């Protein structure tokens, strides 16, 4: 694998270049001076939607929302001749430790708007919704403002630049539920209903918003499009490794010296990312474990095999049974109690379970309760066995990744990833946590939470 290793360890700033380099890039004049809407103008002038699809196909772009689905294939699945059809941009970004879309939304909203325009044109869509996480107060103002400025300057609206193409963009703010990041729950929420995932099929691409064909893409996915068109799909595909082409904006946090977002070209190793790009652990402490892809998937630990794993969607799944998920990396030093981390993650999922399906609604709560007592001095000797066996009710092959599920969506099995990680890597800590409990003691008296 040495040949895929980059000689120089640095970021490859494509999507994030402007937000780093241009002061107040969120202002229209500043963004425009940096070339915003230029590609959009070119696209309109050429008026060749088929070419856009060809470029995106050639680029190998895969969705940056977590499911890694090839964007061009999604577009191609749009049923022909069914109108209206809608574009929905997923800016709900609610996963713990994931904050990469937020940077784009707050600092370079015109990049998003331009991407939305290009995507809508490519797919023959005249109405797009940008769904933003409810807590993004600043981001909401910035995106609303960007859409307003883009309209005022003739980039969005009726008959854009005399091209005959019209696009209306609606910015919608969520009400604070993580599940609304799941695309079908997002659509329910957008329609004014309680955010709960829909049963699939049908997929949104066949029947989404108001039962019409709907393309759902992540903020980063859409923002990347401008650059793919600018560079040419084939050129973009030269970046990265294997089927993981281009770059990925990673949000890196935890016990790390320089937390923040890093635009990483696929193919770096975690060792390079953590120790070179981010400067290693805070106070140069020793690494204990890290979450390579957000909060929902299995963890990796401080060993050569894991640290030398390249940042590659398919390779990491094949070799280590985890994935790059939402693009967040969380780093923990030796002082961390992994059982406590597992509990805290489980608490998030138990709280965010939408309640639609039994295994997740009841199972995440139970997992949380067991992990709570384990991490708070009340663990019982049988608790880990119980945890593993009841987790199988939610995710039948507990240790296997990618997980199987008895649930409607992948939220339910997410805390099981933490349980599996404990079992795989932290049996000693687990055994210690399971030795304190006295069966007679009430187990749900909470000291803090």
């Amino acid at each position, binding site marked *: 694998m040495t040949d895929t290793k980059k000689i120089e360890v640095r970021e490859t700033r494509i999507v994030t270049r402007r937000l780093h380099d241009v002061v107040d890039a969120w202002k229209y004049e500043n963004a425009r001076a940096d070339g915003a809407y230029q590609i959009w103008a070119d696209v309109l002038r050429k008026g060749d939607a088929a070419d856009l699809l060809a470029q995106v196909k050639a680029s190998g772009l895969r969705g940056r929302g977590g499911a890694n689905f090839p964007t061009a294939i999604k577009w191609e699945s749009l049923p022909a001749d069914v109108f209206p059809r809608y574009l929905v941009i997923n800016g709900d970004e609610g996963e713990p430790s994931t904050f990469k879309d937020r940077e784009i939304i707050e600092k370079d909203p015109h990049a998003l708007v331009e991407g939305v325009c290009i995507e809508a044109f490519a797919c023959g869509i005249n109405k797009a919704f940008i769904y933003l996480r409810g807590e993004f107060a600043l981001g909401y103002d910035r995106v609303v403002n960007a859409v307003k400025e883009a309209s005022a300057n003739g980039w969005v609206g009726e008959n854009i630049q005399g091209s005959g193409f019209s696009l209306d963009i609606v910015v919608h703010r969520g009400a604070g539920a993580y599940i609304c990041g799941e695309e079908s729950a997002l659509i329910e929420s957008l329609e004014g209903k309680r955010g709960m995932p829909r049963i699939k099929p049908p997929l949104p691409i066949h029947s989404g918003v108001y039962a019409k064909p709907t393309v759902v893409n992540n903020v980063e996915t859409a923002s990347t499009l401008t650059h793919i068109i600018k560079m040419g799909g084939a050129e973009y595909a030269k970046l990265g490794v294997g089927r993981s082409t281009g770059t990925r904006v990673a949000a890196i946090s935890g016990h790390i010296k320089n937390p923040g977002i890093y635009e990483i070209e696929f193919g770096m190793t975690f060792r390079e990312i953590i120790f070179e790009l981010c400067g290693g652990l805070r106070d140069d402490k020793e690494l204990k474990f890290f979450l390579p892809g957000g909060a929902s998937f299995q963890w990796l630990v401080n060993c050569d095999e894991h640290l030398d794993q390249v940042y590659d969607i398919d390779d990491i799944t094949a070799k280590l049974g985890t994935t790059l998920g939402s693009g967040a990396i969380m780093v923990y030093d030796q002082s961390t109690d992994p059982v406590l981390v597992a509990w805290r993650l489980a608490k998030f999922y138990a709280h965010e379970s939408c309640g639609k399906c*039994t295994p997740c609604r009841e199972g*995440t709560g139970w997992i949380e309760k067991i992990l709570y007592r384990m991490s708070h001095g009340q663990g019982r000797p049988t608790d880990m066995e119980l945890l593993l066996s009841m987790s199988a009710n939610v995710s039948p092959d507990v240790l296997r990744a990618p997980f199987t599920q*008895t649930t409607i969506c992948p939220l339910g099995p997410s805390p099981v990833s933490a349980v599996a990680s404990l079992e795989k890597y932290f049996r000693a800590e687990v055994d210690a946590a399971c030795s304190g409990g006295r069966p007679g003691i009430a187990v749900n008296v909470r000291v803090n939470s």
Partner: protein
Amino acid sequence: MTAVNEAKTTVTVTIDGKSIEARPGELLIKVAQDNGIYIPRFCWHERMKPVGMCRMCLVEVDGIRGFPPACTMPVSEAMVCHTDTDSVKAAQDGVLELLLINHPLDCPVCDRGGECPLQDTTLAFGPVESRFVEEKRHFEKPIAISDLVLLDRERCIQCARCTRFADEIAGDPLISFVDRGDHTQVLNFPDDPFSSYFSGNVVQICPVGALTAKPYRFKARPWDLATVETSCTTCAVHCRGAVQSSSNQIVRLLGVDSEPVNQGWLCDKGRFGYEHVHSAARVLTPRVGGREASWPQALDAAVAELKSAKNLHGGGAIAMIGGASGTNESAYAWARLTKGVIGTDNVDAQLGDGIAAEVVLGSDRAQISDLDNAAAIVLCAGDLKEELPVLFLRVKRAALELGVPLVDLSAAPHGLSKYVTHALGAAPGEQGLVAEQLASAIGGATPANETIAAATRSIGSREGNIVVILGRTSLAERDDTVVSAAAALGALPRVRFLSALRRSNVHGALEAGLAPGFLPGRVSLDSGRVHFTSNWGSVPAERGLGTEGILRACAEGKIHVLVLVGADPLADFPDRSLAKQALDTVGVVIAIDAFETPSNRRAKVFMPCTLWAEQGGTVTNLEGRVQRVSRKVSASGLALDDWRIASELAQRMGSDFDLETVDEITEEFSRVAPAWAGASTATIRNARDGVVLPFADHLGEVVFRRGGSSLDIEYSLSWEPIRADGDDVAVEASDVDETAEIDRTIATEDALTLFVWDRVVAPRSIPQRDAYALRVNVGRKLYDGGRIVAESPSLVGLKKAPTMLVSSADAARLGVLSGESVKATSSRGSITVELKAARGIAPGTASLGFSADGTGASELIDASVSVTDIRVETLR
């Protein structure tokens, strides 16, 4: 189309090694069930869209990773599915364990205990001991989500059957999930109760004991109940039901799923109205002159009055109103008594609030199920949601789910307004005119306006019949507007009529001849004269009067004895002052009723009759479907069935009917009534979904029960659709058990033709409304002042004082605020009523509810004028 292009009509799937043919796209859970493989489930309900929430139905399908739920999985060619492998069992056990962790140990005190799928599945397959040692989730127990329904959120398993029913089926999305995770709960919106007319259905289909209905709560345990299948006769839909009793008390009515009739649903008035049967206000002893008497004394007293009136003034001095609330057999006995023995044709089952019998009996009829695939549905009736609730559900479904255009001739907003696709904007009394415009446009003439053009286009583009739902559009108008609408539309080839007369067994009564000019079996007095004279001895010489004429004749002193059979003209006749005058003037009132009412309070003879569930027999619904009603509890007090009272009176009048049982009447009815020809009591008893009149035309549609008259309660009890046992296709006589012998010989010797309405209508003119007046549309309300509501403790509180709706323009013009009380004055009288400004009502029109207790709208209505105009003044 070539054979290659034709869609494949069946696919072959393998379930647990069994090869099964199924329709493509059908759900796996249903295909399995239809083939004897029961996949456990909680959330899936056959009559609602699948949601895949409970995950109890997880199965394995070759080629699909994990465990897909069978309830959301459509079958496809060569699909191989496993429902009984160890891994499927483990997945299902896992779901069950999770369902139980927060479920309270309420079984011993839970109303569902004994018929609970969660309890049953746990007992059969569940874990012995709980591994969940934490405290369970707690909620306040139980909370009222409406006046009728209580919710115990601790017992809820979040299957969304109730919320889906409320939204998808009833169109009342008043309950929903709130909160998340293991605190997810069903709740109504604050200050907005789940006051749906259909709320009882959620109690029936809730798999667990989370939803309970006040009337049944803590009354019985399911294993103590005796059940019998019957029909609800609260309105004329005749929803199939299963009535249950304990210690001779009715405790519950469950909806039975009959595809052609009610698809499993009941309305709350029908479901809970059984309470009136046990009301303490029932009159249980005969009375003569206001004093309790024995039956012989009462019958003799009645006969003395009847004989003396007949001898002194002739049979025409006697009139009968009513007979619409009992069975077909009772109606037949009363028709034979009045027309064959007393010799009067002044007989009417309707109370001046319906439509001329000629139109109802003599038009081409539609069935309820024709709504599903109609070219269009034309609404020319009152508010179906208020008058025929479960028919409302069917129309709503046709319009919303099946895409049938809904063309509306109503003059006031109603329950279906929001589903209407073409509102033709008829003013009160002008339905006839607008119907004529519609009919001529459909017939090819240039449409009168763009709305009619649009309606005509959408009808023209569809196959099937145009189903006209025909009822009394307003009690403040004579029926001539509806009759002229029927005449205009009836001339079109594709039109079929679905009657929307609302009262109980009114259609059975009309078919039995309880209408002036008719004899039993849909024949006119004249054409049936010879046949019935030979069977009965005599029939009246001339056509008599309907209720309005009878009341007028009473008021003029021309009628000496008025027989009220379950009829209360003071409450139900639209023109109260005429009814009052009639009752004040008439010499003798003989009442057959279960309750004392203002109309029968001064009856010379009062004979107490049995009510629904105390009497067996058959009834006929608004599509002409004859179904059985069953006796479940014994008669209260000394009450007798209506038919027996008629037969006793006949005998004392010197004419022995020789009819000792209900079956004997059914037999005689089938023998002498032409529309009934061809069916025997055995046919009717064994026809799963009843038989539609005229029998000769519909015997081919009959589906017979397989094993006699049992209900399909194989899987559990009330939470799943309850089916009357039967095959899905009509079977040959030889397949049916011996008792169900079909008598297909039609009594043709008399060659009687069934009555056909000639569609001749008298010319009518509608007076101009002056600019200051409002023309009022008066309609029934479900929870009105009628007996069933008044005598059912659970329903009585739901009655609301009627309000008057006007457009906001009129409210502004009148200078009144919405919610203010006003005085409304017509040529007849005036009333004080609360006024509300509403959307969807045209300026110049007012809409007023009929209270059915002798107050309100009936004080404004003059039965002799075609429309009612009122002036409105503020009381300030």
